[in-house]
């Protein structure tokens, strides 16, 4: 990839001592190399984006910077000195505050306790409860959540609010470098705008931000410079003036992948749409939220969208039999859905949102992960017919485009994208009639996304029905025959393919009828 120019120093920040510089940073786990060679720097007063596919080493780099992992080689130069950051506390004392991808919060404690977590020593408290309340309010206010009651237990908060709490936790530490690792994914548009506003203000004060996101629009919006990681190497640092989506994509992917990414846009082939497979009849998600109907037909991909906490997740969980609607019922031609098991019997397969805690069995093999839900098909008197099971495993690998060293490899050794495809393969092994997917492309790299698009297209073309909940609007526009948009815990609008675009979706998500068509 010699044609990629590496611009080591940015014209925007000449001859400034970097706040942090990485020089050939390396980290391996046994024989797996997570970070091969990473070199770039962040100067005071800049917002620096870190981009790369999953498995490119971003998380590892952030863990080293936050004191969770030690580097295997290379140097981390903090404030002009070669530094090894021993643990998260040392990172904070140096002035590095990190918001991790996962929302690490404590349900049993209050909002205040969650935000000030870790400021105290083992026994000594650094400030009074009254002072804590004040600084917590200030920090939350930065992202427009100042109205949140600091005494409220965290368990009662929505996902967006939880993410807000983790951001506030980082903000109120005396930081010079704020690391945001995909920590805006659950925030709604308003909170995110507020946060970006604050980030720009911090930059004005000479503080720096390392910003990781999969969303190109965010990077183009806010980053001064962007460093691209690929296969554990820093391949380039580009300045704002040179940053375009295509340029970043090109740098992130190998050449073939970049072409594939551009070329493989699904064109929504004409699929034969059949009879309704799943029908929501007068469903009310919570009492008084307003009943609605929605039918999903064979051969159709129906998108499900909405701002965080507007009922769309509860709805697909009801379809999967994981919760009962307050009123009405979800019906299939095999009866009313009342439980997870009876939804399964009706041919509904559900993919939960959290791959790590609800999806894969990390130490188990790829084969086990693919077939675990359908073992009955390969067994006689409880004993497995291995030859048949392996043959089915091979078929599923091909069908789900999984890249793996073999059927026996532990699934944990696969990249996040491949794990997700294995997870999807497990559902396909059940030969379902309906796929109910809760944000399947979340945190998945571009290549894997393309593969998942293909899997869904194939599934629908073969007469399957898909309910696809996604937080990425572009994806919904690309894939769906129509999108059901939820607002205020009820179906607000169904936008058909010909009217489908991001503006229309956003309008409907905010409850504006102008661009949307009335709901059924």
């Amino acid at each position, binding site marked *: 990839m010699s044609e990629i120019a590496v611009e080591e120093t940015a014209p925007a920040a000449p001859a400034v001592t970097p706040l942090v510089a990485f020089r050939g940073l390396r980290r391996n786990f046994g024989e797996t190399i997570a970070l091969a060679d990473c070199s770039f720097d962040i100067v005071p007063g800049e917002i620096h984006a870190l981009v790369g596919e999953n498995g490119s080493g971003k998380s590892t780099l952030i863990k080293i910077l936050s004191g969770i992992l030690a580097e295997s080689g290379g140097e981390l130069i903090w404030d002009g000195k070669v530094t090894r950051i021993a643990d998260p506390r040392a990172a904070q004392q140096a002035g590095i505050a990190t918001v991790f991808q996962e929302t690490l919060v*404590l349900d049993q404690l209050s909002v205040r306790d969650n935000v000030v*977590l870790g400021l105290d020593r083992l026994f000594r408290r650094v400030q009074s409860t009254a002072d804590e309340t004040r600084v917590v309010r200030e920090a939350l206010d930065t992202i427009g959540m100042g109205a949140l009651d600091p005494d409220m237990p965290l368990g009662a908060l929505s996902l967006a609010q939880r993410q807000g709490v983790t951001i506030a936790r980082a903000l109120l530490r005396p930081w010079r470098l704020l690391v945001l690792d995909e920590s805006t994914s659950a925030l709604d548009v308003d909170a995110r705008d507020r946060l970006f506003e604050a980030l720009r203000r911090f930059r004005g004060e000479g503080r720096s931000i390392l910003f990781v996101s999969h969303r190109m629009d965010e990077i183009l919006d806010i980053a001064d410079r962007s460093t691209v990681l690929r296969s554990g190497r820093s391949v380039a640092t580009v300045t704002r003036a040179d940053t375009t989506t295509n340029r970043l994509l090109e740098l992130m992917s190998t050449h073939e992948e970049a072409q594939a990414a551009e070329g493989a846009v699904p064109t929504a082939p004409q699929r034969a749409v059949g009879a309704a497979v799943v029908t929501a009849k007068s469903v009310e998600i919570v009492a008084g939220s307003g009943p609605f109907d929605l039918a999903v037909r064979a051969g159709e991909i129906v998108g499900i969208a909405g701002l965080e906490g507007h009922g769309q997740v509860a709805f697909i969980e009801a379809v999967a039999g994981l919760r009962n609607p307050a009123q009405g019922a979800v019906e299939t031609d095999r009866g009313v859905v009342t439980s997870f098991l009876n939804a399964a019997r009706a041919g509904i397969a559900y993919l939960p949102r959290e791959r790590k805690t609800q999806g894969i069995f990390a130490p188990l093999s790829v084969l086990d992960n693919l077939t675990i839900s359908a073992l009955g098909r390969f067994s006689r008197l409880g004993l497995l017919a291995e030859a048949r099971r392996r043959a089915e495993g091979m078929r599923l690998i091909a069908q789900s485009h999984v890249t793996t060293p073999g059927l026996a490899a532990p699934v944990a050794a696969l990249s996040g994208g491949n794990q997700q495809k294995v997870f999807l393969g497990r559902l396909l092994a059940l030969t379902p009639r309906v796929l109910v997917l809760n944000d399947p492309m979340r945190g998945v790299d571009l290549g894997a996304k393309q593969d998942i698009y293909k899997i869904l297209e194939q599934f629908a073309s073969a007469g399957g029905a898909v309910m696809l909940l996604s937080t990425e609007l572009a994806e919904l526009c690309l894939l769906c025959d129509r999108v059901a948009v939820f607002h205020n815990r009820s179906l607000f609008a169904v936008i058909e393919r010909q009217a489908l675009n991001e503006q229309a979706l956003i309008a409907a998500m905010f409850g504006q009828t102008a661009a949307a068509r009335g709901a059924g």
Partner: protein
Amino acid sequence: MKFKIDWGAYYWPALAGFALLFVGNIIANPIFISQDNWRPVLLGAAPFIITTWAQTVPIMSGNGDLDLSVGPLAGLVNAVLAMTLPDLGITDPFSMIAIALAIGVVSGLINGFLVTVVRVQPIIATLGTFLTYQGLTLELLPISGGSAPPWMRVISGSVFGVPGVFFVFILIAVAWWLLGKTAYRRNLLAVGGDIRAAYTAGINVMWVRIMAFVIAGVLAAITGIVFTATIGAADPTIGTPYILTSIAGVALGGVAFSGGQGGLLGAAAGGALLFLIENLFSLAQVSIYYIQIAYGAILLAALALNSVVDRARRRRAAEALV
């Protein structure tokens, strides 16, 4: 200071059960609450309550932490106080209490070190120290014997008409209350709730867990002092039964075994419940073996109750979180 009663708190079922059995004991034997009876009741209840307290703290710190060595440690302290120290000519209260507490601290440091630094699973580590303490006790004291020094009558007797052991409870309660004023309790709940969140936030998770075992060790040592005062001698088998009751007391007290929740109030009620049950049984002159069966059955019932309450609460939370 505003004072609000939290009706959703974890300890209400335990307190209700305690009240019920308390009344039950009075009905069965009205002498139960006569002033003369306070002293033996409190002395009898003390090992149940204090070992349950000891067990509660590591369980609150989560991550599978529990301390199976609390009973045998109390027994070891009992042997040291009634046998070894008098043999060495050490009988003054300050030295004896200091040595007893030091044994508790060292034991806690060992358990905590094994669990956090060596990273041995808590159940294996504390079963190992359990065996070790039991063996040490048998080495020091092959059969019952020894004698408690006279000053221990302060604990076993009464001071100004108040049973001495009552002050031991007050001391522990005040110490725990003071600890709650420090950052430690919040740190403990955080480590127990999600150690990853605690660690990334900058909490020294290793020392939080070690301190939980140290507190357990100190409380077990205090139980050893109370044992010595109560029986006035040393008995190598005295501590072991309290492993089960300490765990049962935690469950009855409404403290979650997953960690990150609970406190000493519920645990005290849980431990006291077990004592009240034993008391009822011995009033009815039921064989000691049936008490064992009752403990097991009550533990299962408490688990079932906790689970029902917890599930209802979680369902409400899930419904609120659309």
